[in-house]
């Protein structure tokens, strides 16, 4: 039996069915090239009044506001808010550390599943989905488009990609921020195992570019709790360094340090109005996506 490819490799039919009812909304104004459900910075044809502008040649006379003409004896046309589609860029970390999994699922696999789920939700809403894959550099880029074929191709590319090398998250994120010109929804799926201050700077870069940013901090539960039962020699998956340690003795101090590490991201994301979420690989993906999108929808109203 041939190996499944594309979206069917990540999501089952019943999962797709359930995900189809969900929406991923941007909390900010976004710039798209198609009419859609999201607010656009451009004036358009929605029923939402924006402002008045002096009539110019070529304007459709039906847009003249006759009440204003009656008061001012000048021609003004009414302008309405434009509604556009959403561009969503999935930025996925493909560094070696992302390929760690204490159970059967690695963080990268989880990230791919998450990307598939979000991509499906986005495309279902007729929004565009794009992809950046990075490790120490941008390894792959897929421009945003809003078809299921595009999504399928994007996921096939993700599926076929080999693990990268070391992580240079901050550098890569800066590069990505520069390359995404229009306002978009940026979903960063990474373990963020780099210098938090630099990563936070990169995140602020996205915000400066008026992007709505979601950080899915993907972590394995073992990385958080260090609940190994026996002592062993740990080998760094990126650098190859080793250290012999008794996890039971170290666990308390380890957790304290790790909590500080998480807190740095959590506090700076709050300050930058970035949606910061911890995606644990032992959490059922469908539950995570459903809970998160429902919560986001409530907050967007």
């Amino acid at each position, binding site marked *: 039996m041939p190996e499944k490819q594309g979206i069917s490799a990540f999501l089952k039919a019943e999962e797709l069915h359930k995900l189809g009812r969900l929406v991923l909304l941007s909390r900010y104004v976004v710039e798209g090239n198609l009419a859609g459900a999201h607010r656009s910075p451009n004036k358009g044809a929605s029923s939402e009044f924006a402002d008045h502008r002096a009539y110019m040649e070529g304007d459709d006379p039906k847009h003249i506001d006759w009440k204003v003409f009656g008061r001012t004896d000048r021609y003004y046309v009414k302008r309405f808010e434009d509604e556009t589609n959403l561009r969503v860029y999935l930025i996925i970390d493909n560094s070696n550390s992302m390929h760690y999994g204490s159970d059967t699922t690695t963080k990268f696999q989880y990230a791919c599943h998450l990307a598939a789920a979000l991509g499906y939700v986005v495309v279902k809403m007729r929004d565009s989905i794009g992809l950046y894959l990075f490790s120490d550099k941008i390894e792959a880029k897929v421009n945003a488009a809003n078809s299921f074929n595009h999504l399928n191709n994007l996921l096939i590319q993700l599926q076929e990609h080999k693990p990268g090398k070391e992580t240079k998250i901050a550098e890569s994120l800066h590069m990505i921020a520069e390359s995404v010109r229009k306002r978009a929804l940026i979903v960063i799926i990474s373990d963020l195992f780099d210098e938090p201050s630099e990563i936070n700077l990169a995140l602020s870069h996205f915000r400066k570019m008026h992007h709505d940013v979601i950080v899915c901090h993907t972590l394995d*539960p073992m990385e958080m709790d*260090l609940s190994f039962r026996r002592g062993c020699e740990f*080998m760094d998956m990126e650098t190859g360094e080793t250290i012999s340690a008794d996890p*039971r003795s170290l*666990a308390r101090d380890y*957790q304290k340090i790790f909590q500080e590490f998480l807190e740095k991201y959590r506090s700076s994301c709050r300050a930058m109005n970035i949606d910061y979420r911890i995606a644990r690989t032992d959490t059922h993906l469908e539950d995570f996506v459903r809970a998160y999108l429902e919560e986001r929808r409530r907050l967007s109203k």
Partner: protein
Amino acid sequence: MFSLLNPIFLWAAAAAIIPVVLHMIQSRRTVKMPFSTIRFLKLAEKQSSRRIKMEHFLLWLLRTLILLLIALAFAMPMFRTQSFGNFLKGAQRDVAIVIDTSYSMRYVTGKRTAWERAAECAVAVLEGLNPGDQVCLFTCEEDVKPIIKMLTEEKEPVVARIKALRPTFFSSQLAPAIMAAADSLKEETHRREREIHVITDNQLLPWTGFRKIESSDSAVAAGWDPKVIGDKTVVFFSLLGATSPENTSPIDVTIEPELIMVDTPIKITVKLAHSGPPKNTSVSVYVDDQETAHRSVIVGGDAQSEYAFSVPPLPPGTHAARIELLDDNLPDDGVFHFLLKVRDKLPTLCVGNKDDVLFLMKALSISLSKTSSIDVKHISQDELSSENFTDYSCIFLCDALPLSGQEMLDMERYVRSGGLLVIFPGDNASVTDYKPWTCLPALPTGLKDVSERNRKMMLRWRKPQHAILRKLSMETGGAPVITIRRLLALGELEADTETLVTAGAEEPFILERQFGKGRVLLFGVSANRAWSSLPLSPYYLPLTHEIAKYGAGIGDHVPYIWTTRSLPLSDYLPEAVRDSSIQDPDGNNVSIQSAIMDNRTVFHAENLTTPGIYSMMDSKQQRVPALAVNMSRIESDLTPINVSDIEKITGLRETYIATSKDELLKQIEDHRMGKTMGEQLLWLILILATVEFFYANMLSRETPKLTDELGIAVSGKVEGPQNS
């Protein structure tokens, strides 16, 4: 000081390297574990490496210690005081042996007496001594008896002395003997180990002397003080008697009447003491080795009971009698000896002129019964010096004063040894003639002439239950009234004086004073009709007869005595002073020693320590019973001591208590050779293992998960507390 019984087990101490080896094996077998990043591990290790090292070190130390101690416990380490003594270059040990020789040591358990066990135990202690060790030997009975007071290295003579010893018939106290033994040990000034071995039975009685006297009074400060023993002296108590002894013994005999005449039946009341459960026994009364009464009795548990026996009238003389019980485990105290003195005549002496003694002689010459009578003899005052007063049970002095000094002293000695002296005043004696006397109830101050009008006086019995007056019962309104013309005026009454009869309301008529073992009666009127009409009174005859009987019944006869080291013969056997041929029950002559006391020669019979009938030669050169000697019945109370109370009673810190020879030898070995520390080590191992268990458990306890602490929602939102 320190040695090992099973040093081979020390090899097991090599197991102490097991924790290290395990640690090394474990570190070799470390699995390589790929991990996303070790940057946090590095930081954590940097922070907690010192703590982890300390925790690991403590665990290693505990485990190694446990293994070492287990090996050590199997090797059975011992502290040996002998080696310690040698190490300090000191000499060896001084041992004092104190043996209880009270007669309770004769108690038979199985087929052997406690004494045989005690002697065997003492010999075993001696045999366990090393060359150079010194020993002294004491026995405790009623006093401490140093058999070998000075410490000696020669063991054989001590063994010989122990084998020659026999239990006495006395009770004992351990405290003075232990103190004496401690004093002997202190004579040795060199630093040596000291031991006191006290060998006794289980009786409580010898322990009653262990009462610390707090008084500062030097007279009583000789009481028990555990400090005298010293901290360095170890006391071994060997209790070799029965733990639940049973014993029945006669503890007292009462003979009624006091004056036994030939025609008088005798009532003998025996008091029995019993310890242990109720049992059947039989009591027999023997007189002159003939069984005269017998009965079976049931004696109750730990109680005293009385049983009365009737003995038919006996011929005159002194009869040896005894109470005998069925043999029990302590047979010696089952026999109680006593004497029955039966009289046919009451020898009475009347001293005075014929006129003075006329009525008295007439009254006393009348027979008392068909078989007995008063044997009255009259002498004048001049013939007094040739008389032996001890031949008489009663002496009447009828206006016979003054006496010569020697006569007066002899007369007082007679009273002191149990005689009855009756003094009738008269016109011949002046007030000054009474003054040299020391035995009078009161000193006369003069003569009182009674006026014509008051001469009729009623005699009042002030002590109607007195032996003299008891039988002189008066009918109602029948009080004797006599005419008194002259009375002896008396000064202040002496101590121990009683007024038996008064003339009228308050005039003393008959006074009695106890003097020594005897009595002195002083009448207020003369014996003839010169001063009163008493001789004509119907009470005169019975009164004089009762006085003669009373004189025979007091003082001069002691039915039994207790075993003693020294008996003053003048008090108990005055007739034996001249005849020194007293023999003990075994036929050996009793030693009689003389001593000068208060300007007079006093004779003492020595060492009346064997119970039984002691005999002496009478005037007819026939051997007659003289004394009945019994062992003290205090010792018959075999109430056992509670072993757990011994330390509390004695106040001694380091004591060993054994109940058999084998146990004693084991304790001696434990003390001298040391005790294995196996038990203490096992306790220590248990404590350390418990500590290790809890400590290791605490270290391996899982740290609470950070995920739970942060409170991560399904949506990935962190809801938990922010880290400061």
